[in-house]
């Protein structure tokens, strides 16, 4: 019985109580392993589904398969697990920003199943974002089990995301960088160490179960100065492709929402359209990694026009799959689109300057992949490390940096928020630790209310009021109705200054005559950012908090600053 009770409270185990960092590292190993396992399960499921459906690809009716997959995926998400469509990464970032990384348990498996249905049936999407939300939810729920605090939970959410990405790409550094750069947004050793450990655990699980394989092996590239110079043009092309994909995804989503039909029908329509494209260009179907491998090996033999059309077709197919309600991520489509964009660019260069000896097309394909990832995520480090790791090619690091940096900058200039963050930024939900918005969001009006104010009534004489002022250390005095207790207005010391040196007025002026009745009031449920905006706009130092016509207390900028500093110190400290 005692054993059972101790099992129920793992946070009380002696080993975990030795040191909080040790606890976090040990739990990170568990989280990394579980999320790595989730990635392997999804990967294996997709391979299995590919094998099942591969022999059907030559039938004319096969174009309905992505429609069936997308519809089932949508029905599963909507009716069974009751979650929204999409890949879920914004949900993870939102939860990290606002709720200390709290995620539902169902998210740890829901997207795995839905994306397996969408991608396995031929939908143009990737399995990476679904494993990110699964890994993150695993981390969050394990943190809940161990009764960890918000900061530790957020770190474990990052561990889950890192373990998942590391496992699915066999790329531990990319997983680690992605979790910190995109999910957590905070480079601190307290986060980095557990996330690094989780990345290693996730990668090891993948290597044990699937073997230590580089996803896209390649031969050595001999990169010249001309090639490096040409990277600038490629960066522009990948930036254009990124913007096109981002905007098409959003416009498809808007168009789909206008259709008065259930979600699963919309998803089926999108899937059907993808299936039709796939009849003519099978490269657009599924993850599409075979296209990447063929291109990197230099064996993709199609000409400029076909490759260019395939690039656009893949962009459209991805927008149709994800925008119309299919489930999956944009990592894999980005890699394929980037690869095709790089190949198109290489063919274009060869056509325009046939006398120049350009590096192999595979190199431009790699650079295009990094460009698309960097452009879509606006996370250049993730793009660089991912491509280095999944291709095992360090020699392309210089052009990789150039393409990633330029693409990120261009995309940021045109689309200030990355694809994952757009909605969060629009609604003010992207709250990175230590920023003004985050500090304010972690404070609320109720905890800032100062209640040591002395209320006065409208029928009080100035003389009585002066006696009250003598006892109070505040400058503001709420005026309440004698009978109902309702808030009527406020008196500031400045309001009585003109009467103070004229004792004749002491017994002739009533507070009701001098109180300020046009007062902006605050509700305890108001956002603090809105409260500060009101204070700034009206040049106020304090504002009354009123509920149901009753005065609750005052909010002052001085007290707010004290609390703000305290919260900022908590958020920016290195302790966990």
């Amino acid at each position, binding site marked *: *019985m005692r054993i059972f009770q101790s099992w129920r409270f793992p946070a009380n185990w002696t080993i975990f109580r030795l040191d909080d960092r040790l606890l976090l590292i040990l739990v990170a190993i568990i989280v990394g392993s579980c999320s790595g396992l989730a990635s392997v399960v999804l990967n294996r499921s997709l391979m299995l589904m590919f094998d099942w459906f591969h022999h059907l690809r030559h039938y004319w009716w096969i174009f309905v398969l992505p429609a069936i997959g997308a519809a089932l995926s949508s029905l599963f998400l909507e009716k069974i697990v009751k979650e929204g469509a999409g890949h879920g990464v914004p949900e993870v970032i939102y939860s990290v920003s606002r709720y200390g990384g709290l995620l539902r348990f169902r998210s740890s498996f829901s997207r795995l199943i839905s994306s397996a249905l969408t991608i396995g049936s031929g939908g143009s999407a990737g399995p990476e974002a679904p494993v990110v939300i699964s890994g993150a939810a695993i981390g969050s729920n394990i943190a809940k089990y161990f009764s960890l605090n918000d900061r530790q939970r957020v770190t474990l959410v990052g561990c889950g995301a890192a373990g998942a990405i590391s496992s699915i790409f066999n790329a531990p550094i990319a997983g680690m960088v992605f979790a910190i750069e995109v999910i957590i947004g905070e480079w601190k050793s307290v986060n980095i160490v557990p996330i690094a450990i989780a990345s290693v655990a996730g990668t090891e699980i993948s290597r044990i179960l699937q073997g230590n394989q580089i996803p896209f092996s390649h031969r050595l590239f001999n990169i010249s100065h001309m090639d490096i110079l040409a990277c600038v043009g490629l960066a522009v092309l990948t930036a254009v492709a990124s913007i096109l994909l981002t905007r098409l995804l959003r416009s498809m989503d808007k168009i789909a929402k206008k259709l008065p039909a259930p979600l699963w029908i919309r998803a089926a329509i999108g899937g059907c359209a993808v299936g039709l494209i796939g009849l003519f260009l099978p490269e657009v179907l599924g993850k599409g990694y075979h296209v990447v491998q063929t291109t990197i090996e230099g064996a993709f033999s199609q000409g400029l026009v076909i490759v260019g059309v395939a690039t656009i077709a893949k962009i459209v197919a991805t927008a149709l799959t994800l925008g119309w309600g299919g489930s999956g991520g944009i990592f894999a489509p980005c890699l394929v689109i980037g690869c095709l964009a790089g190949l198109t660019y290489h063919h274009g260069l060869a056509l325009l300057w046939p006398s120049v000896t350009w590096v192999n097309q595979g190199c431009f394909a790699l650079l295009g992949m990094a460009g698309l990832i960097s452009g879509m995520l606006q996370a250049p480090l993730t793009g660089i490390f991912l491509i280095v790791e999944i291709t095992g090619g360090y020699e392309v690091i210089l052009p990789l940096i150039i393409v990633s940096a330029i693409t990120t900058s261009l995309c940021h200039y045109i689309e200030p928020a990355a694809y994952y963050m757009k909605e969060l930024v629009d609604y003010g939900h992207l709250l990175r630790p230590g920023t003004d918005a985050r500090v304010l969001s972690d404070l609320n009006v109720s905890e800032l209310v100062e209640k040591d104010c002395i209320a006065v009534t409208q029928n009080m004489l100035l003389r009585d009021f002066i006696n009250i002022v003598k006892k109070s250390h505040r400058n503001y005095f709420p005026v309440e109705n004698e009978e109902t207790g309702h808030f009527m207005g406020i008196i500031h010391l400045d309001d009585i200054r003109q009467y103070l040196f004229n004792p004749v007025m002491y017994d002739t002026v009533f507070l009701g005559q001098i109180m300020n009745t046009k007062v902006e009031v605050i509700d305890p449920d108001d956002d603090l950012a809105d409260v500060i905006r009101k204070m700034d706009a009206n040049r106020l130092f304090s504002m009354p908090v009123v509920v149901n016509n009753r005065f609750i207390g005052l909010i002052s900028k001085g007290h707010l600053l004290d609390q703000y500093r305290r919260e900022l110190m908590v958020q920016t400290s290195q302790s966990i």
Partner: protein
Amino acid sequence: MNHQLLHIFRNSSLGRETLLQSIYFSKQTKVSPVIYIPKSNKFLMYFENDVVQIDLDNSYLMFPDTALEHATELLEQAGVEPRFLDPKHYTASTLPDIHTNFDYMSCPRSIVDLSSKIGLGYIGPRVRRIVKSAQFPVLITSPVYKKWESIAVFFGGSVNAFNALKLGFRICRISGMPLDVFTLLENKSQESYEKLIKEENLETEMSHYVNNWHFLKNRTLEENLYDVPHNALVVLGAYGHHLLKDIVFGSKMEKIQSTISNNLLIVGPNYTAAI
């Protein structure tokens, strides 16, 4: 003070009964009811260490055109100023977050499953999760509006039972209604319970607020429950002493909720009561 009760409004005859019950509770305990009229069939509640997704059954979305009007009418008839909750944050476009800084929450026995599952003996899984995670007590209303005119606290000596007792004192103090305490004597003696009260320094409050302390001696709890007034608000802790106390509700709690049709005010493990 601005104490608030969260009520999820259902625009149906059943929802009306529940709202009337919430309004009555609010008036007696001097809290402001805050009404949420759902616009989608699910929402999230983020607690300190848990997030609970509430999947509402379709009856919560019925007749949206008249929902606001009906709720306002009931509140105004009772002389309560209508306050409605408008979610400010959304985890996903159709998934609003409802904040959890309330002092009470009112629930029917099930807010997730079919409305048919509102009878005795069934408390829906989401209501159980809310009770487990919330820092506020949950008012599980009787199926039909029924005024309560006294308070009955079930006290078994657990931590939750002490919280329930303190909550009973508090409601007794605010509402001025008589308070009775019920304790089932199983293997323990009456003196042992009195000793527990002494150890917690609650003797003064017991003598001040409690009308009668009933020590139930019948063999089964069901037999003893006949002594509980039909018009009492029953206050009790959700979990007892047993081994699985943080997984499943206590056995007494289950028996009480499946036997009596009174309004129940359930205290979960995260609630800390102040008198």
